[in-house]
């Protein structure tokens, strides 16, 4: 009885591993493989291609033809690190803005009488019923020179010359903050809702100021939600392509656009794969570091 393997349990645990293997590790492996190949005018447009008829020898010739040339190219041209850096900046600032706007919304939702909360959550999710692309496109109509915003501001006499917002970095920030706000609000709301608000009353009774109560009690308790929300916004914003393409100017540099150019304009699948691999590495490293930090904290709390 003791040594019997619980196969049901194994199968259940295996599902997420199989999922990750087939839908993450395997595709990622093929991207890495492509990033080590060379460009070719052929179908598929890279070489070497694995020839299954040659078996192990074929695999060996395949591996022996791999090189790091594409990664070297990324270091030779400053375009790539500038794109990474620009994406990093845009993603970081957008995440901060999203947090600043999302936190009061989530906090307000958590403080509303419970019979209203389901409706409010519904309202946060509602925009997802319309295509993401159409919602971003709608911002063109709002932000353009003869658009809704400028017309309204001129009508009320606030400005007399239309503001140039569309096709600038500001429009990109607006687009990202707007699109990813629900991803910040929902995890924040989930943690804020669970906070025992009698702790706040206790703090206030003991003479703590409103502001300090918020910083000392609410923020630390909401930290898991803040972190989850920030990751959910930061990671997709880093690789964002559609928003800078539609709302940004021609000079908006982002790694998603650079990768698109490598893939579609230069038709260089190997170099664009190398860009993607580096992007993933840059995203994984902070996530892993953060998780290590959290594990350490959990252990300390446990002691």
């Amino acid at each position: 009885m003791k040594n019997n393997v619980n196969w049901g349990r194994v199968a259940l645990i295996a599902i997420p591993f199989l999922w990750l293997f087939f839908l993450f590790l395997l595709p990622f492996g093929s991207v890495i493989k492509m990033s080590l190949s060379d460009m070719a005018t052929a179908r598929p447009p890279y070489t070497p291609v694995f020839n299954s008829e040659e078996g192990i020898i074929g695999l060996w010739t395949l591996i022996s033809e791999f090189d790091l040339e594409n990664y070297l190219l990324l270091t030779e041209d400053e375009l790539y690190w500038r794109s990474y850096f620009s994406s990093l900046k845009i993603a970081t600032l957008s995440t901060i803005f999203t947090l600043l706007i999302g936190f009061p919304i989530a906090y307000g939702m958590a403080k509303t009488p419970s019979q209203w909360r389901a409706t409010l959550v519904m309202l946060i999710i509602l925009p997802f019923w319309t295509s993401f692309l159409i919602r971003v496109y709608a911002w063109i109509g709002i932000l353009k020179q003869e658009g809704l915003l400028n017309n309204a501001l001129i009508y009320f006499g606030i400005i007399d010359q239309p503001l140039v917002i569309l096709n600038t970095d500001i429009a990109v920030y607006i687009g990202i903050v707007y699109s990813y706000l629900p991803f910040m609000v929902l995890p924040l709301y989930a943690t804020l809702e669970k906070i025992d608000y009698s702790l706040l009353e206790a703090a206030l009774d003991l003479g703590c100021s409103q502001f300090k109560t918020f910083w000392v009690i609410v923020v630390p308790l909401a930290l898991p939600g803040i972190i989850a929300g920030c990751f959910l916004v930061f990671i997709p914003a880093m690789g964002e392509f559609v928003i800078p393409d539609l709302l940004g100017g021609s000079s908006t540099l982002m790694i998603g656009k650079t990768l698109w150019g490598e893939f579609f304009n230069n038709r260089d699948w190997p170099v664009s794969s190398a860009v993607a691999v580096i992007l993933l590495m840059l995203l994984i490293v902070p996530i892993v570091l953060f998780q290590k930090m959290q594990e350490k904290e959990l252990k300390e709390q446990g002691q």
Partner: protein
Amino acid sequence: MFSSATYKKTLIASAVASAFFFANAQGADRTVNVYNWSDYIDESIIADFEKETGIKVNYDVFDSNELLETKMLTGASGYDIVTPSGAFLKRQIKAGIFQKLDKSKLTNLGNAWDQIQKVTSAYDPDNAYSINYMWGTTGIGYSKEKVEERIENPPVDSYSLLFDPANAAKLADCGIYVLDAPTETIPAALQYLGLDPNSKDKDDIKKAAEVFNKVKPFIRKFHSSEFISALANGDACLALAWSGDILQARDRASEADNGVTVGYRIPKEGAQVWFDQMAIPSDAKNVEEAHLFLNYVLRPEVIAKATNYINYANGNLASQKFIDKSVLEDPAIYPTDKVMSNLFTHTADGPKYTRHLNRTWTRIKTGQ
């Protein structure tokens, strides 16, 4: 009672029904999968072809050469006919993506316009792999009122409207758009400078880049489709773009009757001419049906119908007598012989050239 007349009727009815059934069953077996540019055909052509041949057409659309190329390079696209543009076709033929046409099956090929065939053979030698569907130019689209308001006697038939910083500066506030496609824009700047538009020389390309750098502050955006609606509703007053798209903006503006008049001119310095070519992928499953479709499209009255509907010139000389006068005599669609002799094609390619061109273009756009 069973009268012989009723019996006969029943027999005929069942015979007709079964004939119809078999015809249908046979038709259901035969399909052709066509992948063409969006808004690029009169849909009745497809219906007529289906009715005449019993072959079902699965008609699917794309909106960029890059998208088409990626599908082709990945393979097993499932399409039997695709429509890449000249330079893309040339490279894709080299990559082994297409099969040679069986010209014995294209009995209507004699209707093709030899002048166009001569030019397209620069991309597809002997036109062995493709037939021309439509062609057009890359030139200057402008909003008449807004440009005339800002510049006296604007040189709308010259690249200098865009490339002369004095002109561009005056038009900056009403919106200048330029195609985000270096294979269109760099050759235009080279032509403006009087250099070879197909030059691969790095110094020449650098000179073309300098032309753009001087007017860059006045350009609102480099984008390959946003200018259509921007021109039509008055958010833009100048665009270096494809003829067909600008003519579409022209029609939209006149339909909207919003006080915007969009014009299209082929620059007198000489403009690039582009060709959309129909070809059969090497892994196509319905090769026979694909040839039947191509042969159908080569019929003068059929392709004329498409031209009348979408306002693009086609490569079918015999079709011209079926084309509406307003289309055939519009020099923006069918240029005069004098303008025709000044058009050029862009055939320079190769991965190194492409990378250099795109890198130059990124530097122009971003300053990086």
